[in-house]
């Protein structure tokens, strides 16, 4: 038993390094997508202290809008632009109709409001687009298909061109977001709001504008995530559950930390895959990915309650 836990998995890794590389690659692809979804949560939380329960359904809504518009004959890239427009209108509407009237209310009220947004978008989305599985317009968007087969160490490593594209695009998006947050006036305003609401408001930062902006950014992230996951297994309301995979990422990385979202996403993506393949499947019958990330996050929280990169909150009485 001890050998199965402490020795055999590592023997397996060294015996088939090509397979280990495949596991790590699959973990990296999942991880970067988790990181992307987690970023959507973090941005909104930092600027408004709202835990956006609707992030998952926004992924579905964005992907369905894109596919739906294309089905009406709109060219692929124009559909992307129009979908971004729809996500902007959605952000604007949420700010005006849901968030603005609730300014100053306890956080839990705002959280409940995002559950309301989720339920509304589910109903609205199903009414407009139906619940059927739809094919993502990957080829129309120029997303490469096919794969590159390599033979490292005399073995087999398959890299899907779709996955390579996803990794590149998601990385670029993360870098662009970091640049936006660090080097632009609006980005600094978002960070300022996250650091100190009152101080930010006192220097003239507009809460309404920032809220619209962060919800729009969350919409962009939702669209990219929806395209990436939709291209893998179709566009349906099942995509919503993907977003819940970001919850342990937030617990691990810290709800306020952009770095935490990125590092946490990558860590969970790769570690859960390694654990599942080398420990979960041989010892526990598999399907450990459903709980591994949460257990890992809980262990981290035991030692760092604010998460790996979260800010320690000190409240003086």
């Amino acid at each position, binding site marked *: 038993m001890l050998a199965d836990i402490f020795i055999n998995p590592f023997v397996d890794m060294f015996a*088939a390094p090509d*397979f280990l590389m*495949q*596991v790590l690659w*699959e973990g990296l*692809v*999942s991880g970067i997508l988790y990181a992307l979804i987690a970023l959507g949560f973090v941005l909104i939380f930092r600027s408004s202290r709202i835990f956006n329960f609707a992030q998952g359904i926004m992924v579905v809504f964005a992907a369905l809008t894109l596919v739906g518009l294309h089905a009406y004959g709109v060219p692929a890239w124009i559909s992307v632009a129009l979908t971004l427009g729809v996500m902007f209108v959605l952000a604007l509407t949420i700010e005006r109709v849901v968030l603005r009237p609730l300014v100053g209310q306890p956080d839990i009220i705002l959280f409940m409001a995002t559950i309301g947004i989720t339920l509304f978008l*589910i109903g609205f989305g*199903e009414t407009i687009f*139906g*619940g*059927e*599985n739809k*094919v993502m317009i990957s080829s129309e968007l120029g997303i490469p298909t096919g*794969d590159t087969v390599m033979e490292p160490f005399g073995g087999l490593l*398959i890299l*899907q061109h779709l996955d390579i594209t996803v990794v590149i695009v998601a990385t670029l998006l993360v870098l662009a977001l970091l640049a936006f947050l660090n080097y632009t006036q609006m980005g600094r305003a978002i960070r300022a709001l996250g650091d100190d609401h009152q101080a930010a408001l006192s220097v003239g930062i507009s809460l309404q504008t920032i809220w619209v902006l962060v919800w729009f950014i969350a919409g962009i992230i939702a669209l990219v995530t929806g395209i990436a*996951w939709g291209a*893998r*297994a*179709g566009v*349906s*309301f*099942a*995509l*919503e*559950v*993907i977003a*819940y*995979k970001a919850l342990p990422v937030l617990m691990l990385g810290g709800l306020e930390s952009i770095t935490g979202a990125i590092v946490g996403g990558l860590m969970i993506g790769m570690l*859960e*895959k390694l654990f*599942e*393949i080398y420990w979960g*499947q041989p010892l526990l*019958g*598999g*399907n450990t*990915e*459903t709980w591994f990330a949460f257990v890992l996050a809980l262990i981290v929280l035991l030692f760092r309650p604010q998460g790996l990169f979260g800010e320690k909150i000190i409240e003086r009485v």
Partner: protein
Amino acid sequence: MRQMTKLALAAVVAGVTAGAAIAQELYAPNLAYRTGPFAATGIPLMNGQADYLSMLNARDGGVGGIPVNAEECETGYSTEKGVECYEKTKGKAIVTQPWSTGITLQVLPKTNVDEIPILAPGYGFSPMMDGKTFQWAFNAPSGYWDAADMIVQYLEGKDGDLSGKKIVHLHLDHPYGKEPLPVLEALAAAKGFELLPIPVGLKEMQNQSAQWLQIRRERPDYVIMWGWGAMNAGAITEAVKTKFNMENFIGVWWAGHDADLKLVGAEGKGYKSISWSFPNPDAPVMADIKKHVVDMGKSQSNPEEMSGVFYSRGIVISAILAEGITAAQDHFGTAEINASQLRWGLENINMTEERISELGLDGMVPPFSTSCANHTGNSGGWMLEWDGDKFVKVSDLLTPNTDGYADLVADKAAEYATSNAPWPMNEECSAES
């Protein structure tokens, strides 16, 4: 006083009207799921069911002249919501259609008390075949244990001998996915193949890379799949991605949905699915549905969906219900049957080739019959194969070797009855009846 008289009169009129309204329909609620992660597979089935009954209502005034009201109660495939829907609709229902193995297991004991038949065609708890124990439950025309047996038979026919082979059972980590395991385990022991169950969690349905990495590592000879909803699409795309030989990938009937295969198109060629239903666009029933439902603007379906396996299965499911109603109406000499009478009807269905043809369902369902002792019917099924564009039949009718697991059915039924004691048995029902 005058006001009181008016009120009393109004109450009487309302009562008579309501009574008449209730009497003029057969209420057969459907615990449907058109929303949530499983909607993609639920919608074509529900559309097929609804369109067939709408056609009967429009063409024949219902069944035996009484319209069938198959009102849908949305569950989203959630077991909790399913139970709520059952409770909400059971008052005047003559049947309940739970539409999930999880919901079926939950309402199974309740239907004994409420005396409402469960109609779960091709799903639910496999020992429901034992009509003496499960007098209110029906899973005709074929159950999951039949499916497991037929798939193994097919593989045997292809390979000759399964001894020493490795077969992966890729399944949804849900009661439905685990349902065939007892028979698969028994068949593995009897035929000498290695069975490797690989579960897929509900949150992992669209990201099955870990499961397919395990399949790559284990190098199985075959993968059989008990998948549903988004899991099917996830598995099929991963199989293509990892270059698994699709010829060796076989799903149960709920994993044979055209839309899931269209995601991979030609790359999915060779994928198979055992099925007790098959679309036949030239069947007379399709023309009737077009005339009485589609052309009247009453259908929620579309031509592409209507040509698929799942829509046609929805039609067959409603036809089974209608046959049960007809049998009960004929036997009891009344068109307005109750739940108890429908129970009798459902266990006296006799779908011969002639009857199937009479119903206009030619080629869409194999012949089968139910009895007091056998609530499954064990119709058997065809092996379907994806040709890159649609499913085609690649086998003659396969029939399950029910003798091979008759003892298992009896044991599991007895085990269920014991653990849910006191469990009422249908003592009038002998094993041969």
